[in-house]
């Protein structure tokens, strides 16, 4: 196994962040160079995974598992890493247009924080060790707090503070769970723990605490309250990164744990509880999105609803029948959501640059000069709603198929209703574009790079639908949630 791949994937963005901090390299250049290196790393990783898969593991430090720690990667990790890189590079390009006009004061530190966040996400996507995940979560949380508070508005600072408190509390709950598991088995590696874990009070409490911590970070229904303001008030490229990938990485960790380590518990109540959390998030997020007045807030609330949707993978898992289909569906949904959500935020940012606000009632009707932006918004919205042939459609369709095959009728109905609700609030955003045009001029012209990036992400979200077949064959037909414990 090539030892250099995970090192490049994690430490390239970290090194870039440090070099930008020491003012050796310019931020944009560092971001693009990191993107380039990661492309090489990801191609290598992808070919290794499909060649020697389904799982690859590495031992940084060279010590075997109970004493040392590991990195692990499978096809899901690869596609997540690819999506993170795509959004990070697009967001960086968007920021080159956005920051000088909208937030010149933030440019000084934006890039360092951006690259730090990226490094933290990559390390979380590869980490196999529960305590290493804790450190990664803290790294990601601090970088995200820094990014949100780059916006100097009082509301953004308040949102950053709330996010800070909530997310660190979540980390602590997570760490308590990890402490219990370590106390029980003296191990921290997910696969090694999964091999020995059994029913018992301590393990159940550990699962509850860890899940609660991660639910807070993924912003699902009862503990979602921090997300709308944090994602809605942050600078636009930051909102895109947070909503599209940071939350997705937290979900990814939760998914890893419940499909692997805690899979023995999943069968009855836990799957039901996770499903109900998802259900509540879909409807609460959706109904709140319907009430919002600004485009950015609608998009922010839709993140809660959409991750609620992805949570439905757990009851479908428990129903059995079509585990692989459900898995593929969840992966596709997360990927398509990431790109589409980034594009929606970018579009809102373009409108903000053009008109100085994004309140849907006051936006001038008609597309004006922003035809491309509205086209991107429409495409991305279509993917979020799940209209064929977008990536969102394939994801939701696979999930629905799996639910039907597993005869989980209740969850199938929830999925259909959820999609309808999504359609309703996304329509509210789009409606502006085909209102009869009022003669209003844009305050500023939107830099071309911003429009291009917006469109690129939207097209990407739709393209996932067309690429579904090769993507699914890359993901593989077998469901193997964990590497071999001994590795």
């Amino acid at each position, binding site marked *: 196994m090539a030892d250099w791949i995970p090192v490049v994937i994690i430490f390239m963005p970290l090194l870039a962040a440090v070099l930008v901090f020491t003012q050796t390299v310019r931020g944009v250049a560092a971001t693009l160079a990191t993107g380039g290196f990661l492309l090489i790393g990801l191609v290598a990783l992808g070919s290794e995974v499909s060649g020697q898969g389904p799982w690859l593991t590495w031992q940084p430090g060279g010590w075997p598992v109970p004493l040392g720690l590991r990195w692990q990667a499978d096809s899901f990790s690869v596609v997540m890493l690819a999506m993170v890189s795509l959004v990070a590079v697009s967001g960086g390009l968007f920021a080159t247009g956005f920051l000088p006009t909208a937030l010149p004061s933030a440019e000084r530190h934006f890039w360092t924080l951006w690259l730090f966040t990226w490094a933290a996400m990559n390390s979380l996507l590869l980490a196999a060790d529960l305590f290493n995940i804790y450190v990664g979560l803290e790294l990601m*949380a*601090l970088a995200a707090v820094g990014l949100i508070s780059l916006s100097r508005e009082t509301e953004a600072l308040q949102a950053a503070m709330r996010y800070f408190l909530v997310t*660190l509390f979540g980390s602590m709950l997570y760490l308590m769970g990890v*402490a219990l598991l370590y106390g029980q088995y*003296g191990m921290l590696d997910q696969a090694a723990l999964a091999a020995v874990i059994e029913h018992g009070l301590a393990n159940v409490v550990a699962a509850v605490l860890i899940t609660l911590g991660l639910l807070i970070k993924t912003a699902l229904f009862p503990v979602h309250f921090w997300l709308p303001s944090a994602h809605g008030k942050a600078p636009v490229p930051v909102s895109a990164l947070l909503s599209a990938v940071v939350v997705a990485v937290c979900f990814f960790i939760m998914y890893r744990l419940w499909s692997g380590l805690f899979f023995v518990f999943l069968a009855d109540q836990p799957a039901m509880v996770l499903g109900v959390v998802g259900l509540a998030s879909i409807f609460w997020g959706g109904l709140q999105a319907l009430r919002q007045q600004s485009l950015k*807030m609608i998009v922010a609330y839709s993140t809660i609803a959409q991750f609620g949707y992805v949570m439905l993978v757990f009851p479908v898992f428990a129903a059995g029948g079509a585990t692989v289909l459900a898995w593929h569906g969840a992966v596709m949904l997360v990927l398509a959501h990431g790109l589409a959500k980034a594009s929606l935020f970018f579009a809102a940012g373009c409108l903000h640059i053009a008109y100085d606000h994004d309140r849907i009632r006051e936006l001038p009707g008609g597309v004006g000069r922003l035809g491309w932006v509205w086209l991107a918004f429409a495409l991305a919205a279509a993917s979020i709603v799940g209209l064929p042939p977008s990536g969102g459609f394939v994801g939701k369709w696979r999930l629905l198929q799996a639910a039907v095959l597993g005869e989980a009728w209740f969850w199938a109905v929830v999925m259909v209703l959820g999609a309808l609700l999504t359609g309703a609030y996304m329509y509210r955003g789009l409606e502006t574009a085909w209102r009869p045009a009022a003669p209003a001029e844009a305050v500023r012209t939107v830099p071309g790079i911003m429009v291009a990036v917006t469109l690129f992400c939207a097209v990407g979200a739709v393209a996932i639908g067309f690429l579904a077949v090769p993507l699914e064959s890359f993901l593989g037909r077998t469901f193997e949630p964990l590497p071999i414990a001994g590795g």
Partner: protein
Amino acid sequence: MTAFYLILAGVILAMAFHALMTRPNLLRKLMALNIFTSAVFLFLVTLARMAEPLDPIPHAMVLTGIVVTVSTTAVGLALLVRLYRRSGSLTLQSTDDD
């Protein structure tokens, strides 16, 4: 003796959790979060003491945790000062949309 320290950590944990949730002042919330963290560390180190022989790995974990906590506290305080200069208040307004 270890049972005593576990209970002690439990008591501190409950107090810190309660303060974190109910105190409006942000500086106090930050202190509560810090104390909460200390209680969790106390659990971990007591677990290390209960193992036979003494297990230094939780010690290393807690050392890492202490450094991470001081970093987060510093960031929290910087944010608090910034927020105070901007809004003139040390409390968070509740969100109207929720």
